């Protein structure tokens, strides 16, 4: 290569191994090429060319170039991994958020159900503690469910407090109302108690609240329920 050629010329020049013509030629070139002139000056100061040094230098350069290529590969793969990791992370967070919102909105729905239906559309029963030890054999919850299923009150609703004793077969008897409730309210309460689930205990005192029913609801009930209810009433 030109490079090595120059180097051996410099070497020969410094050590006086050149013919006069060759020396003149190099000097002439150096006059037009300050880079070459500087290099010659340098090597002359060093008293010659050290080929070993230069090959070490060449090795250092090669290593430097290779290192960078290796690093770049490493960085490339790291970037790839990072990208995959980031994507996975984003997906994970999105999934979590979706799950959270789904869960959250579901919960809200359920709560709305309870709040809206209980006071307005459902018959509720409230055992009055001073009234005795009576309680439905299948629990208050079942009893309340029963009331809601079977109640056919289509009137404006109302509140009634009833006292009763429990017969041997678990059916409430001696049902009486406190105060002056609407007759239809009283009849309905009696009917519901007598036909309904069995009781345990001796005496009971309950407050039953019939909601003001929506027309749609009551209409539905009158359409579906009557045959069934008449059958029971006949009994």
């Amino acid at each position: 290569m030109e490079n090595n050629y120059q180097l051996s010329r410099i070497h020969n020049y410094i050590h006086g191994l050149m013919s006069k013509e060759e020396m003149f030629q190099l000097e002439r070139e150096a006059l037009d090429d300050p880079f070459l002139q500087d290099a010659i000056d340098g090597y002359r100061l060093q008293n010659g060319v050290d080929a070993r040094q230069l090959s070490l230098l060449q090795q250092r350069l090669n290593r430097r170039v290779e290192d960078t290529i290796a690093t770049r590969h490493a960085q490339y793969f790291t970037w790839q991994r990072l990208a995959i990791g980031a994507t996975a992370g984003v997906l994970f967070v999105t999934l979590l958020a979706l799950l959270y919102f789904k869960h959250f909105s579901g919960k809200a729905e359920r709560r709305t159900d309870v709040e809206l239906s209980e006071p307005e559309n459902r018959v509720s029963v409230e055992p009055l503690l001073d009234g005795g030890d009576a309680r439905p054999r299948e629990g208050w919850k079942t009893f309340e469910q029963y009331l809601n299923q079977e109640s056919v009150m289509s009137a404006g609703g109302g509140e009634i407090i009833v006292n009763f004793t429990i017969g041997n077969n678990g059916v409430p008897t001696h049902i009486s109302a406190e105060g002056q409730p609407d007759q239809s309210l009283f009849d309905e309460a009696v009917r519901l108690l007598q036909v309904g689930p069995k009781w345990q205990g001796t005496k009971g005192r309950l407050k039953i609240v019939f909601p003001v029913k929506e027309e749609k609801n009551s209409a539905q009930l009158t359409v579906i329920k009557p045959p069934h209810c008449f059958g029971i009433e006949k009994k």
Partner: protein
Amino acid sequence: MNEKELLQHYKTSGDLSTLGKLYSPYMSLLYGVCFKYLQDPDRSQDAVMQIFEELIQKLRQFEVDNFKSWLHVYSKNYCLMQLRKDKRTTQVDIEDNLFESEQKLNDTSEVKWEEKDFEKLEGCMQTLNREQEECVRLFYLEQKCYKDIADLTGYDLNKVKSAIQNGKRNLKICMERKENGK
């Protein structure tokens, strides 16, 4: 790829092996240059490597026309900066450096010479001092090497060298001045 293509390729791609190909032919010259200023083998080697590191950035930023002379100036400046950092004083021949920087400016292509130019040259030769005129004549007209000139004239080798460099410079100045005066 030739040097210009390598340079362009590196500028666009930033591929270090391309820069390596570009740089490696100059390493031995660079080492010489660095040794001239730093005068220490290890420091000179480190400087050669460090200059390479700096080129990684610089060559992508700057438009470099003539890589060889750009590299020469860059590395010389690098070494001088190193010396300045050391606050170490090194004697740099101001004449040498003056000559070199002018050399860069006058890299223009060959001008056609006519008869009157040779007359002018002869006139200019008279303006040089005796040493310079003698050395320039022996070198350029008789094509003698520095050592022969030193032997013939009895001057020191370094004196011959600078006489020729300065003589050449003065001649050039003289020739250009006369041309402009026309």
